[in-house]
């Protein structure tokens, strides 16, 4: 077991998501920044869908009860193995009794911790991704225990990769959404000219943006939404649905983020600014 001695701000188990149940209203979930989660898995030669820990901003204090290999990627949250600094985007052997802590939040928002073969929490509806009430919890609490395999023998082909500053990405590539044309010419211009600030209301379900693009009166019937769908409220505020986003919605879907843009947005937090570009 991996023992969670301190919980940190918000840490959850995530794989690539829960597919095949959207027509029952079940959100996809899965790692917010899938590129980073996949990188951590790739360094350990894990399956792409192996479950990782998604660690938000303030990391937990973890204790390994069995030996294994770990890889860390995504946001740089100053990881420390047994009290000693280790590099982000690196692979390490851990022994029984080792501790992993996190310190200062250097860049990004969400870090990823992979173990060899992935975390082995129960798979419910084809996924280990935390989403309450499909899984009991939506995040790990102190004293939680997360199962994983004991692995002694592994020879990593890659022990460290160089990945540039995760904060340098400030542009989200999008395609027009189904209701793009309910916007006026002026509103469209604002969308692509303005810079937008991430509001306090940002989590695994949705990111709200602070700036308004002006009111609209378009009424529509509830219809499907996707992770990365940008909705506009009647007041003109933008809401970007993320991995835990609801499967249907009644606000106009004016833009759709690319998968890469969802990953990049997942590393942004309150007060960060972004711009939007048609790809």
């Amino acid at each position, binding site marked *: 077991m991996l023992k969670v001695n301190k919980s940190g701000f918000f840490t959850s188990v995530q794989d690539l998501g829960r*597919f*095949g*149940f*959207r*027509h*029952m*209203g*079940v*959100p996809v979930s899965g790692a917010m920044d899938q590129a980073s989660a996949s990188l951590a898995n790739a360094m350990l030669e894990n399956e792409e869908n192996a479950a990782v820990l998604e660690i938000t901003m303030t990391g937990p204090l973890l204790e390994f009860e069995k030996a294994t290999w770990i890889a860390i990627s995504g946001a740089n949250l100053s990881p420390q193995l047994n009290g000693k600094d280790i590099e982000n985007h690196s692979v390490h052997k851990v022994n029984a009794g080792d501790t992993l802590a996190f310190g200062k939040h250097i860049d990004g928002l969400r870090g990823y911790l992979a173990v060899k073969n992935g975390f082995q929490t129960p798979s*419910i*509806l084809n996924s280990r991704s935390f989403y309450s*009430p*499909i899984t009991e919890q939506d995040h790990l609490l102190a004293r939680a225990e997360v199962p994983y395999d004991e692995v002694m023998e592994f020879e990593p082909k890659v022990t460290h990769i160089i990945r540039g500053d995760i904060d340098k990405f400030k542009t989200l590539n999008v*395609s*027009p*959404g*189904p209701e793009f044309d309910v916007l006026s010419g002026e509103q469209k211009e604002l969308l692509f000219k303005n810079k937008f600030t991430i509001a306090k209301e940002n989590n695994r379900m949705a990111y709200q943006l602070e700036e308004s693009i002006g009111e609209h009166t378009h009424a*529509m*019937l*509830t*219809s*499907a939404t*996707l992770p*990365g*769908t940008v909705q506009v409220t009647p007041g003109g505020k933008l809401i970007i649905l993320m991995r835990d986003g*609801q*499967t*249907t*919605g009644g606000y106009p*879907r004016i833009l*759709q*983020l*690319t998968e890469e843009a969802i990953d990049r947005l997942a590393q942004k937090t309150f007060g960060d600014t972004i711009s939007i570009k048609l790809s």
Partner: protein
Amino acid sequence: MNSYPIQIKPFGVHAVLIEWPNNIERNILDDILIFKDFLLLNGFNDKAWEMVPAYNSLTLINIHKTIDHKAISIQLEKLYSERKEGAKKKTHLWRLPVCYDAEFAIDMEEVSKHTGKSVEQIIALHTATTYTVYGIGFLPGFMYLGGVPKDLETPRKATPRLHVKKGSVGLARKQTGIYPQDSPGGWNIIGNCPIPIFNSKKENPCFVSVGDSIQFYAITRAQFDLHIIQAEVGIDLLKKESTSA
């Protein structure tokens, strides 16, 4: 079989949206479900494609495929013109118990004031109607039920509640529905249904499908408590009747 002008719209690189005329109509919903079943048999199998029907739309999602929107639009137009009503898929009428006791019906007074109906009249109207499931979304197992009688229409609350109890039965304008889990919500709560609508431990976690019908019947508080215990120990309380679409 009615034919409708449909519109096919790109929805990112992994999804395509098909829209019917912008009306809430049983005939439109039936046409959507017929087309969905036809697509399943004609190259859009459910291993690769997720299909989300709702009111006047059908969204096809394939996360493993970069969709060529021009090509798929032509393909879908053609399939729509060729669609056939297959072996009629069974839809179900589900009878669900609701306890309308004051303890649960925290907005009954407001609904009564707004509609000018007594509590008894509201319960009689709410249970006399057969509702259509036009969509499932917002939360796992949350049904958008259409067909609320005009006399019961009540606008949603000006300020949504932060906590609506699991099982709460709500009214909002032309819609009624059940909150399948504790959640924030802005509908007027007039009762509580003890049957869990969504259960992730079951092989089929949601017994209701879009296109099914729902009718409510009133139960006492004692029956409600019994149903809660029965649901916990796994006794199946569902009453269903099969009908053809």
